[in-house]
């Protein structure tokens, strides 16, 4: 409503400026990766957490964005900003085409269909021949340039992606507190009742799907410009699963969940890489994988609503809550 409700976002804005004092490209790249994943998970959070539709195929949209940006800039010499826009729009269009039929499916069937779509797109990246560079991928993607600013180092890129993420967060805050947000929630809770309130569920689910594809595509485009090399392997089914895990770990249907999920998963990865070798000398990824899996399972058992809901434990009842009448 008022500024005070955006306190979290404003604080985040301050937090973004603090690291500028630190001269660590590693920190910046970690934060860039977190922001890129988080953008994908924001969209997925709307789709899964609000509209209640699962997708195991978002790595495909992420990849489509990446490849769109890469192909347009290296093969057709498009300006980078325009290519980034296209990277968001193309996956959106594809989502619009496939979504109407696919979203009729429910639960596990929808999971299977989106999984299939993800694998299909991955095959297209591999089989794209000259256009996609096949399994070897394509390198030499130029730096992203907006106006006269070229985002050619980690710090600049960090500012750009977090600024974008912040804008998206504000938008999502608006969205979930609007009529549309309530309608999305109502679809998740009861499609019957939502229809009876006049919500065109099919259309709204499709819009949420397109929205999530747009964000995934945008993130994919940013990824391509950031790493400047792209190949099919980061866009496999594993990545789709990773995105779903981030959304779930953070907490579905919560505002901070997607960001939290991306922060936790990426930091956990980095942390385990640092810590595990200290605990078990000479240990490689295998221990990390096991620990990662165990943490995931434990979280699902003991905190199935995601990490955001842990916040409740910190909450002291400031005002006596209204008690329902017996």
């Amino acid at each position, binding site marked *: 409503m008022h500024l005070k409700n955006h306190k979290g976002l404003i604080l985040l804005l301050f937090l973004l400026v603090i690291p500028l004092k630190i001269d*660590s490209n590693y*920190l910046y*790249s*970690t934060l860039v990766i977190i922001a890129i994943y988080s953008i994908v998970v924001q969209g997925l959070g709307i789709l899964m957490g609000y509209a209640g539709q699962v997708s195991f195929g978002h790595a495909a949209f992420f990849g489509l964005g990446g490849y769109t940006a890469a192909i347009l800039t290296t093969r057709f010499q498009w300006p980078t900003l325009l290519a980034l826009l296209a990277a968001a729009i193309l996956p959106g269009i594809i989502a619009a085409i496939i979504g109407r039929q696919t979203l009729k499916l429910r639960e596990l069937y929808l999971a299977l269909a989106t999984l299939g779509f993800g694998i299909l797109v991955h095959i297209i990246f591999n089989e794209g021949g000259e256009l996609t560079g096949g399994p070897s991928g394509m390198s030499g993607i130029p730096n992203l340039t907006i106006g006269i600013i070229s985002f050619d180092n980690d710090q600049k890129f960090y500012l750009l992606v977090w600024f974008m993420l912040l804008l998206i967060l504000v938008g999502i805050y608006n969205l979930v507190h609007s009529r549309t947000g309530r309608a999305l929630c109502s679809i998740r809770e009861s499609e019957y009742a939502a229809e009876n309130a006049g919500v065109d569920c099919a259309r709204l689910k499709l819009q949420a799907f397109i929205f999530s594809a747009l964000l995934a595509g945008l993130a994919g485009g940013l990824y391509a410009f950031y790493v400047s090399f792209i190949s099919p392997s980061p866009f496999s089914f594993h990545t789709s699963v990773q995105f779903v895990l981030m959304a779930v770990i953070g907490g579905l249907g919560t505002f901070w969940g997607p960001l*939290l999920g991306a922060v936790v998963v990426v930091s956990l990865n*980095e942390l385990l890489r640092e810590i595990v070798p200290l605990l078990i000398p000479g240990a490689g990824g295998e221990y990390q*994988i096991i620990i990662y899996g165990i943490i995931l399972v434990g979280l699902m058992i003991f905190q199935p609503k995601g990490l955001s809901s842990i916040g409740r434990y910190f909450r002291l009842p400031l005002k006596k809550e209204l008690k329902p009448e017996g």
Partner: protein
Amino acid sequence: MKNMSKGLKRRLGLALLLVISLLISACSPTKEADVKSTTASANEPYKIGAVLDISGNSSSLGVPERDTLLMMVEKLNSEGGINGHPVDLTIMDNKSDETESVLAAKTLIEKGSLAILGASSSGTSMAMIKTVESEKVPMISLAAASSIVEPTSDRKWVFKTAQSDIVMISKIISYLKKNDLNKIAFLYMNNSYGDNGKKAITAAVKDSGISIVAEEKFDANDKDMTPQLSKVKASEAQVVIVWAIPPSASILTKNFKDVGLTIPLIHSHGVGNQKFIELAQGAADGTLLPIGKLSVAQQITDADPQKKVLESYIADYVKKYNSEPNSFGGYAWDAFNLLVSALEKAGPDREAIRGELEKTQGFVGISGVFNMSPEDHNGLKEDSAVLVKVDQGKWKLIE
């Protein structure tokens, strides 16, 4: 809505905690990076880093590379290090993931690594290039794709130790010409290894009088290549060339025999380990392949400059790990020793190390004799490979 804003506040607490912990964890490497800038004392260790595909899809490459590096560092430090400086090697696992590869490279640079060895495969190596180029850190990749070091104008800081596919393919082409085989069937794995092989052979057979009459691919996960081979059988190919690694290369070799093909079968150096023969369960006999000299070290003439180096690497490795080393370990051996010899001359200075690496001449390694130049950041020629035949489960040099 009021409730929501309260929720926001509380959740923010948690978010804050996380961000702060992240900041703290990120600060520590920065401090280490500061240390590096102070003048090095006499026995200040030289920090080097390695990013390897230890787990994930390409782990069969990364593991022997890690083992080799650990062995080399131990040996070097016990012998007094480089000009009195011990080597402090940090090995990071990128889990065969390109994004993790980038992050691992940045961590290492942050920690003050003078150079980076790795990554193990083409994709993970390619992903690190932008980082090392912009941070100006020498990198020696252990992967084969020639696009890792070409064009050298864009790859000033990137080197690699594995032979490019073209080296291996020229070996095969000369064999084909000698035996008057000019209709080939080419089968390759549908990944960047196979793809690079395909690109190299397509370029190499152009204007050579050799034609590719059948071209088929298969997935790394495929369990049966009979369909592809039955197509080859129906073609008029005189020889089959396969660009793949085990296990699919082994499955293919078994299927090759099953469908009753009798024409020569030539594999790539990707099958250059005992595992390939073992998994093919007898079907590998008679298979030809170009390979680095490591596998046939005992069979090469004493006059070969590599002989001594190869034998000592094998001896060391067998002593430490009780198993034979393979060519991937060899790439790591080469990368490590190339770097060590550059460090000896250049000291702890990234720019100077890069310069020394580029000036490498006549360096005798496991994969061949390296002669680098500003135009060639691999430095290996056709003489670094030999053609071998599988004979009763053993490699047999046929030259």
